[in-house]
């Protein structure tokens, strides 16, 4: 078991090193509780880093029922999370705290 440990660690950590370096980044901005752009185009079959910028004075939670994502972004600040890879198609996301307006779509091509 002990001899296996370095391999297990390597298996766990390698994807981190690989993905942290060469992941493309895309940005969504929240203003007046709306996502800009409301349609974000991203490539298929890759993992991406999503930068969230909140220009509103209240917190928001980026969330989706179509793909795993759940992240709170505080007022007038920014954060990021990793999503994907996706097959081509359209995936809806929303802002959990302002659902009537904060709606958007990922367009995966």
């Amino acid at each position, binding site marked *: 078991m002990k001899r296996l440990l370095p391999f297990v660690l390597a298996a766990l950590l390698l994807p981190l090193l690989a993905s942290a370096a060469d992941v493309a980044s895309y940005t969504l901005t929240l203003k007046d509780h709306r996502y800009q752009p409301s349609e974000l185009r991203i490539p298929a079959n890759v993992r991406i880093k999503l930068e969230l910028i909140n220009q509103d004075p209240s917190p928001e939670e980026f969330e989706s029922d179509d793909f795993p994502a*759940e*992240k*709170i972004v505080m007022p007038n600040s920014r954060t990021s999370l990793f999503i994907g890879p996706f097959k081509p198609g359209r995936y809806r996301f929303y802002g959990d705290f302002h659902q009537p307006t904060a709606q958007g779509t990922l367009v995966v091509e």
Partner: protein
Amino acid sequence: MWAVALLVFREVLEAALIVSVVAAATRGVPRRGWFVGGGIALGIFGAVLVALSADLLAAAFSGVGQELFNAGVLLAAVLMIGWHVLWMSSHGRELGRQMQVLGNAVHSGASSLGLLLAVVALAVLREGSEVVLFLYGMRAGGAEHLWAGLSIGVVAGAALGFALYAGLLRIPVRHFFGATNAMLVLLAAGLASTAARYLIQANLLPAWGHQLWDSSWLLGNGSLLGQTAHILVGYDAQPAGMQLVFYASTLAALWAGARLIRPMEAVRQPR
């Protein structure tokens, strides 16, 4: 008002389901009401603290503080539930026997009651902190009927929790602790799987297959039933491989632990 009520309801429901299972699992234990009530109060207090320090949390660990915090809270709850389940598997039969003889008066030690208090507190803290942040934002935005929405959400969520609790109490005494223990095991496995999901989102864990299957067409994560199944048995419409590993490991660890404990008990107390 209804938007507020709906969000609050969903968060309260998640916590209420966990509290209900814990409350049922500690049925007949003296002073249990105080422990569950105390856990809820402690959780609300913690939720406000977490919401107040959300800025710090968001900036911590180069932006993944939120995911680490959520995963940490979930895994702590998994450990505590696991400990209780193993404790019950060594004492559960005695408890079951005593309940049949003495009705509800179980006078045996409740050594793991404190742990379950912590589980209740953690569940309330995690869901509650989101409610606090949401209400803070709504208030800043000048939303109307905030308190009405909050009240409706809390009452509706708690009512479903009570319904589950009442349903669980109808399980025959002979099978009662077996059933609630099984529910606690599934609950713990689901929480472990959710913890893995947060760590994958932060890129702290590899996914080992980002989407093993997609059963959204059957039961979506966003639906009420899907959300309930998510808490109670760890349902996820699009699970990653790593989530399954966490889920199965929790199940396997608790099953193996219970098997190891039982023979020791049998040796200690020959019948």
